[in-house]
C-alpha cells in the first residue's frame, strides 16, 4: 500500500532525493531553497542517508563540486534559487557541455535588483539556453515524482536536469504526497554506471579545448543529445505511469477539448488558472489551460496538439525578458506557432512577479481580457499585468 503523507514540499523533495540514494550533495543556502538542503544535511548527519555532503562556500562552488563528483561517477544533487543560480552561471554550461547527469532542484525566486526572496521565474529563464533539461512542478506530488524522473532521465541522456519548484507558494506549503516504494524505485532507478569518468584504471581527458575545427561539432552533438532526450523523457514517464498510475506529459491540458481561449502557463500557478476555468465553465464559457511541464527541450509538437482549435492563447509569463518581443514563454509560443498553420492570437501577460499573488479571481479577469481579443487584436506584443498606477 502506498501511504499518503502530509509534508512540506521542500522536505518531501529532500526525502525523494535521499530515496534516489545520491552519493554526493553539494549546496549553499539561499531562501527559499534552504529547507531542502537543511533536511538533506540532517538525513546525512543522522545516518539515514549514506552520502557525502559538501557544505561549500558559494553556489559556484556547489556546482563545481557536483561537476567533479559527477565526472568521477557519483550520483549528485544540488539545489539553489535566484542569486545563487546566477553565481553558479558559468558552471551551468560546463555541466551540460561535459554531459554530466547532475540533478538540481531549482526553487524559483526573483532575481535582484530590487532584491526579493519571493517567487517568479526570472532565475530559471536566465539559464534557458544553458543546455539543461527543465521540468516544472505544479504541486508537491509532482515535485517528488519529477525528482525521481530527473535522475532517470539525466542518467540515460547524460544531461543535467533542473526540477523547477515555485518558491514559497509551492516549496513551503504542506501537501499530501506519496513516495514511491523503495523497491520499486530501485528498479526504476538502477545504480548509476557511467562509462567515461575519471578513473585511474582508464585515464581519459575531460574538458579539452574546443578548437574552431571541433567546437561547432561538439555543440551540434550536444544539441542533438538534448533533442533526443525527448523520447527518453517520454519513456521515463511511461515507465513511471506503469508503476504508479500517475501520468506525466510534456504538455498537459485542462478542459481544452472545445476551448475557445486558453491560458498557457508553467509551474504552480496553473492550479489557480484551472480553478478559474471551473468558475467560467460553470457559466458556460469555453476556456481551458495549457500547462507546460517540459520546458527544455521545448515540446513543440505536443504544444501544437494541446492548443486544439483555440482562437486566442493568453501566455502568462513569470519573468521579463527586457527589451525582447515578449516574455520568455510568449516568445517560445509564438515561435512554435510559426511552425504551424494554426495562428491563434497571442496575448502575452507577464504576471506574478516577485510573489505578487495571481489568484483564481485574477485568472478569471485574465480570461475575460483574453475574450476581448477575439474581436480586438492585442495592442502591444506583451503587457505587464496588474501594475499599480
Amino acid at each position, binding site marked *: 500500500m502506498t501511504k499518503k503523507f502530509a509534508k512540506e514540499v521542500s522536505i518531501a523533495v529532500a526525502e525523494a532525493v535521499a530515496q534516489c540514494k545520491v552519493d554526493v550533495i553539494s549546496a549553499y543556502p539561499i531562501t527559499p531553497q534552504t529547507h531542502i538542503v537543511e533536511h538533506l544535511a540532517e538525513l546525512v548527519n543522522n545516518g539515514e542517508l549514506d552520502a557525502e555532503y*559538501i557544505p561549500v562556500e558559494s553556489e559556484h562552488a556547489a556546482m563545481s563540486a557536483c561537476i567533479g563528483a559527477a565526472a568521477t*561517477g557519483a550520483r549528485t544533487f544540488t539545489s539553489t534559487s535566484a542569486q545563487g543560480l546566477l553565481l553558479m552561471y558559468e558552471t551551468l554550461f560546463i555541466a551540460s557541455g561535459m554531459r554530466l547527469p547532475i540533478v538540481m532542484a531549482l526553487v524559483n525566486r526573483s532575481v535582484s535588483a530590487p532584491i526579493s526572496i519571493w517567487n517568479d521565474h526570472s532565475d530559471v529563464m536566465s539559464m534557458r539556453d544553458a543546455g539543461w533539461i527543465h521540468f516544472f512542478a505544479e504541486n508537491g506530488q509532482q515535485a517528488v515524482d519529477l525528482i525521481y524522473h530527473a535522475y532517470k532521465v539525466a542518467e540515460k541522456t547524460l544531461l543535467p536536469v533542473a526540477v523547477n519548484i515555485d518558491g514559497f507558494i509551492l516549496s513551503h506549503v504542506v501537501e499530501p504526497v506519496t513516495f514511491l516504494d523503495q523497491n520499486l524505485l530501485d528498479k526504476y532507478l538502477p545504480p548509476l554506471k557511467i562509462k567515461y569518468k575519471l578513473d585511474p584504471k582508464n585515464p581519459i581527458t575531460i574538458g579539452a579545448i574546443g578548437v574552431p575545427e571541433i567546437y561547432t561539432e561538439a555543440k551540434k552533438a550536444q544539441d542533438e543529445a538534448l533533442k533526443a532526450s525527448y523520447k527518453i523523457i517520454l519513456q521515463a514517464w511511461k515507465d513511471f505511469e506503469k508503476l504508479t498510475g500517475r501520468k506525466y506529459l510534456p504538455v498537459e491540458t485542462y478542459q481544452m477539448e472545445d476551448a475557445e481561449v486558453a491560458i498557457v502557463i508553467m509551474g504552480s500557478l496553473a492550479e489557480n488558472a484551472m480553478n478559474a476555468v471551473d468558475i467560467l465553465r460553470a457559466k458556460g464559457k469555453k476556456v481551458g489551460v495549457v500547462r507546460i511541464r517540459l520546458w527544455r527541450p521545448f515540446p513543440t509538437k505536443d504544444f501544437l496538439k494541446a492548443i486544439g482549435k483555440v482562437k486566442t492563447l493568453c501566455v502568462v509569463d513569470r519573468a521579463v525578458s527586457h527589451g525582447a518581443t515578449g516574455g520568455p514563454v510568449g516568445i517560445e509560443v509564438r515561435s512554435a506557432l510559426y511552425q504551424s498553420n494554426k495562428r491563434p492570437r497571442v496575448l502575452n501577460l507577464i504576471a506574478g512577479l516577485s510573489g505578487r499573488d495571481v489568484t483564481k479571481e485574477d485568472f478569471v479577469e485574465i480570461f475575460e481580457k483574453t475574450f476581448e481579443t477575439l474581436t480586438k487584436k492585442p495592442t502591444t506584443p506583451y503587457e505587464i499585468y496588474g501594475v499599480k498606477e
Partner: protein
Amino acid sequence: MRPELKNFKGFTLKNLPEYEGFAQGHRACQGCGTVLPLRLALKALGPNTIAVTSTGCMEIVSSPFPYTSWNVPWIHVAFENSATVASGIEAAIKALKRKGKLKSKEKINVVVFAGDGATFDIGLQWLSGALERGHDFVYICLDNEAYMNTGVQRSGATPFGAHTTTSPAGKIIKGQTTWKKNLMGIVIAHNIPYAATANPAFPIDLMNKVKKAALVNGPAFIHVYATCPTGWGTKSEDSLLTAKLAVETRVFPLYEVIDGKYIINRKVDKPKPVEEYLKIQRRFRHLTPEQIAYIQERVNQEYEKLLKLAESFGETQTEQKDE
C-alpha cells in the same frame, strides 16, 4: 611528526621513477619552467592519480582536442574553481568506496594544478573553502607570477616592480606597485597538515614534497616557483638558472610547514644580491637603483621573518640533496 610521514622514503637520483604522467609533444614554449614542475609532480604522484587543472597556460598547452598530454585521468572545468572540482572528486571517491561502488585498495591521489592567477586572485575563495573543509587533496600552484595565458597581465603574485601588460613600466608608474601577496601565509592560516614551497631547479626536493603532500591525510598545498621565459623576458636556456637564483638570492626560499611547524629546507647564509636575479629578466630592466635597493631590503626582511618562525620551532634545515 605526522604519522603518515614517519617512515618517509624520499626520491633520490638513484630511484627516480621512469613513469611519466605528462607526455611529450605538449605545446608549451621552449624552456617553459612551468610545465617542468608539473611533469615532475606527476612523476612523483604516479599513475593512481586524478588531476584537475585550472584554465591557463598548462591547460591550453596540454589539451587541444583531439590531443592530450595527460596520461592520468584529467579534468579542466574553469579558471577559478579547481579546488572545488577536486573537493567533488575526493568526496565522490569517498562515497563510492564506502558504498562498494569503487574498488581501489590504493589511495587515489587527487591533485590540482593551477596558476598564480587561478590561485592568488580569482580562485582564492574556492581554495579557502576546500582547505577549510579538509578534503584529502594536493593543490599545486604553479606560480609564474602573471596571467601568462592571456598575455602576461599582472596578478597578485607579480613581484614588485615587474613589467606586465597591465602593470607596464611607464614614464611615471614603473611596473607592479605592490609586493607579492603572502599566499603561503593565507594557506597556513587554514591550519592544513602540509604546505611547502618548491622550485624546479631543485627537482628532487620538489618531487619529495609532492610525495609528502600526497601521503598526508587532508589538504596539502605546494607553492611552486615556476619560470616563464616568454612572459619574463629571459632566455629559454636560462629558465633553471633564474629559478636557482631565486633561491640563492632569498627571493623564493624553500621551506615546509608541517602541522604549523616551519622548516627551512635550504638555508641561504650567503645570499647573492637580488640584482643578479633581476638583471637577467627583461621584466625588471627599467628598475631604478632605488627600486632595486627597496627590493633587496624587503627580501632581507621577509627572509628574516621566515628564519625567526623556523627558529621558534628549533629546526631550520632538513637534509636535502639535489645536485
